[in-house]
């Protein structure tokens, strides 16, 4: 999600040196930028793109998990999953609302998603084949999202930072409910444990891809770091995630599908960390460019939801207008 929002971002901007320097001084002084403040066009464009894609990721992210609501194994799991999917919808709405303060309309963002012009996180283009996937998504996908989102709580753009604070508070529930699902399976029958392992095998690499391309291949990261939209690079966050996750997998008795994974005591300035194998970037770019397993279905489902809801939006507006007219007429009659 998140760092992928910067892929293809146009950070170019045409203001005078003096204006840009004054803006950078505000950023360096850790002053938050608020919607009506003057800002470079590149800063605005980058944020609209990133927040918009982040919002789309939350909304599209409801689909793979929604797939299992009716088939959750117990009432408790079903209630928790329903609440989690509702949260994702809420997160999308906080973020759309933050993006709208920059002058982009909700309709415009929706149209861009449906036309395939705006991206969302590559991770949601993978299918949820088993119940274990619901656990794995909460544990790893939400875990990776938290890694990305915690530094975004300090993003220089006020509305985005505030939205992220709300999101992070709620995201912790998502990760814990996911881990608990995987834990239950891992401690269950051999078949259940095998299901958890098979799910981890499928999701591990796509989750590492969520952090976006390597720093050396990421063109717009530098400017975003200078503007304090981003606080850590893709590779830094990916490393933190791997280091945090491996002990969690070990506790479950599951193994990540990486023969090159190895503890390296030299890493992280001598604190130690894991070396891990090469990521298949061809797969990543294939999915980002629309050739993932679920890309077509996801957009088709979003479009269908939008089209099917059209009569509701029209009826609500017509009703609101009728009420407003009636109230105006009553007021006139009273005078």
């Amino acid at each position, binding site marked *: 999600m998140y760092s992928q929002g910067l892929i293809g971002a146009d950070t170019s901007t045409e203001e005078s040196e003096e204006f840009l320097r004054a803006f950078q001084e505000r950023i360096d002084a850790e002053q938050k930028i608020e919607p009506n403040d003057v800002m470079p066009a590149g800063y605005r464009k980058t944020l609209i793109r990133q927040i918009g894609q982040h919002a789309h990721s939350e909304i599209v992210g409801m689909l793979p998990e929604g797939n299992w609501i009716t088939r959750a194994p117990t009432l408790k799991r079903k209630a928790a999953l329903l609440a989690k999917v509702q949260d994702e919808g809420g997160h999308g709405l906080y973020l759309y609302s933050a993006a709208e303060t920059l002058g982009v309309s*909700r309709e415009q963002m929706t149209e861009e998603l449906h036309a395939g012009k705006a991206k969302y996180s590559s991770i949601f283009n993978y299918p949820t084949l088993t119940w274990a996937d619901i656990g794995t998504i909460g544990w790893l996908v939400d875990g990776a999202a938290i890694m990305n989102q915690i530094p975004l709580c300090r993003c220089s753009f006020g509305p985005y930072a505030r939205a992220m604070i709300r999101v992070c508070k709620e995201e912790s529930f998502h990760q814990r409910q996911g881990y608990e699902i995987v834990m239950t399976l891992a401690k269950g029958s051999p078949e259940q444990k095998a299901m958890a392992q098979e799910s981890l095998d499928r999701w591990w690499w796509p989750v590492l891809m969520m952090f976006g391309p390597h720093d050396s291949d990421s063109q717009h990261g530098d400017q975003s770091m200078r503007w304090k939209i981003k606080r850590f690079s893709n590779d830094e966050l990916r490393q933190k995630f791997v280091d945090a996750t491996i002990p969690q997998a070990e506790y479950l008795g599951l193994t990540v599908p990486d023969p090159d994974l190895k503890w390296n005591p030299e890493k992280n300035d001598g604190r130690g960390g894991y070396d891990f194998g090469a990521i298949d970037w061809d797969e990543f770019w294939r999915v980002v460019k629309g050739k993932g397993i679920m890309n077509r279905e996801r957009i088709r489902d979003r479009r269908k939801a939008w089209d099917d809801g059209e009569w509701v939006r029209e009826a609500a*507006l017509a009703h609101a207008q009728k009420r*407003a007219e009636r109230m105006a007429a009553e007021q006139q009659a009273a005078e």
Partner: protein
Amino acid sequence: MSETVKNEVPLWEVFIRPRNGLSHKHCGSVHAADEVMALQAARDVYTRRGEGQSIWVVRSKDIVASDPQDKEELFEPTADKIYRHPTFYEIPDEVGHM
């Protein structure tokens, strides 16, 4: 906050009072056709975990805001009025806490 697009569902700003004794605080916005739906949407979006005891919704276009460009003109004059602060006045220690 453009209202120009035809059939665009209006934007409302949402304010939540976490509990009695505290004031309502801005927390974001929602799109809704009318005030009834705006309140329902605000409840669903912003109070899923007991964040509020009361919600205000206000049409975004009805909010009048100061221009950040006027910040100096509006707020700078208070900076040199240090005599408005209690620490401006020297009271001997013998007087005790005041």
